[in-house]
């Protein structure tokens, strides 16, 4: 139980954080195809973790989580800050998404090459980074996730009215002199911190930051507005994610656990293709 409870709670919180960061990024960009993975936050986090892992290996150091966080989070926050400056028009967002996707492909190529080199020199390689899993979840990782989730809840409490006003439209909120820069800074910092935290603790769960907000919006927005999408919907997504992790844990294949990131990414990609196919261009609006 000492292992299972932190593990499954970590899965719930990770699902929640992925859903919430996806929602925040889609709110700021007003584009359903924007997500931490499509904008390159995932790629950047993986790249930094690889670099960090290699440096630690070369110099023969332990890999303290604290130093990884202290170096990686500012890096992703800087990218978030840069994005917040360039997110003015749909055209610029689409360009950022294309850049982000291309960057992810580049990181994929670097990842494979790095893996090849490590195998050639018989060095340990963090192969699980690409498809996340919760095998190493423990109380420490659960505490870190709780702190991040606490930050998101606190941000909602502080900026609730600004979020709601901004969600009416950029021009409407600008006319009411809403400080959009401040709001964007918070949104992108949250996304950067949330994404880096999840990836550094458990690896990448691609597509979930994109598909989870859509599910939360579709089922919970109409009745409970943003609160429904950001919290109730995110929690239910988290529970769903935990159930997938249960499958992975209780049904090993030949004694080996299939990474939950692999299952979730596959399911997420298929869902996204189906949704895009059926959406007829209406994905942007939370449907009734």
């Amino acid at each position, binding site marked *: 139980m000492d292992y299972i409870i932190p593990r499954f709670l970590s899965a719930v919180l990770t699902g929640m954080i992925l859903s919430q960061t996806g929602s925040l990024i*889609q*709110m700021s960009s*007003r584009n359903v195809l924007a997500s931490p993975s499509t904008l390159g936050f995932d790629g950047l986090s993986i790249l930094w973790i690889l670099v960090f892992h290699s440096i630690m290996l070369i110099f023969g150091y332990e890999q303290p989580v604290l130093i990884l966080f202290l170096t990686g989070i500012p890096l992703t926050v800087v990218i978030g800050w840069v994005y917040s400056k360039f997110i003015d028009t749909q055209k610029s967002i689409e360009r950022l998404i294309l850049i982000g996707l291309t960057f992810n492909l580049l990181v994929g190529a670097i990842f494979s090459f790095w893996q090849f080199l490590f195998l050639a020199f018989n060095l340990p390689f963090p192969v699980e980074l690409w498809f996340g899993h919760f095998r190493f979840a423990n109380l420490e990782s659960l505490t870190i996730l709780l702190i991040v989730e606490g930050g998101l809840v606190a941000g909602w409490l502080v900026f609730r*009215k*600004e979020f*709601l*006003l901004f*969600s*009416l*439209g*950029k*021009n*409407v909120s*600008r*006319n*009411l*002199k*809403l400080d959009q820069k401040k709001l964007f800074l918070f949104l992108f910092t949250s996304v950067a911190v949330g994404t880096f935290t999840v990836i550094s603790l458990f690896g990448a769960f691609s597509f979930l930051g994109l598909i989870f907000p859509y599910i939360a*919006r579709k089922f919970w*927005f*109409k009745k409970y*507005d*943003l609160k429904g999408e950001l919290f109730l919907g995110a929690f239910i997504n988290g529970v769903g994610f935990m159930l997938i992790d249960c499958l992975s844990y209780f049904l090993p294949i030949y004694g080996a656990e299939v990474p939950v990131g692999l299952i979730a990414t596959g399911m997420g990609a298929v869902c996204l293709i189906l949704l895009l196919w059926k959406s007829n261009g209406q994905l*942007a*609006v*939370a*449907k*009734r």
Partner: protein
Amino acid sequence: MYNLHLNDPLFLPHCGCDISLSVQSGEMITIVGENGIGKTSLVQRFYQENADQMTLVEQIPLDIFYDRSLKKVKEIFLDARGHIIKKDFFLKVWSRFGLDKKEDRMQSSLSGGEGQVLKISLGLAPDTDLYLLDEPSHYLDDSMKVVLNELLQDLLSQNKSIIMIEHNYSWVKSSMKVIELEQKSSTLKIGKTWTT
């Protein structure tokens, strides 16, 4: 009084701009000019450079990323923290445009004209001294144009200033200055000016 000035040789890909505009309190100026000459770009530029002093009602429809009922939109708008909204005027605009009878409707179900009056209602509510309106009568039927005219007269009587882009301004039943933009030697300038 507002003095708006824009001198930018790289204003548009095909021309620069050299325009100075003064608008008095309680005055309305209508900008006309041929399609594509740069009227919307000019007004947006004025807004970008002085956004803290004015309000812009854009030409493009409201961006509905989150589909809400009009009741919810009104609630959020009135609840905006620390922002100056002329609440009574907003409620007046809301009911004069008949939105109070459609509060259960979702934004995505509104017609072009209904979406336009929603956009105008939200755009006229902030308490600023200068309002920039980009083709506000677009999509509106004659009765809605009459209401819009009354609301603009109301704003003018409160000593607010209005700069509006409008091709057919015959629905405005008050005296106003009309400015025609024209392009001279690759520069956008003020051409003919007259008062109605």
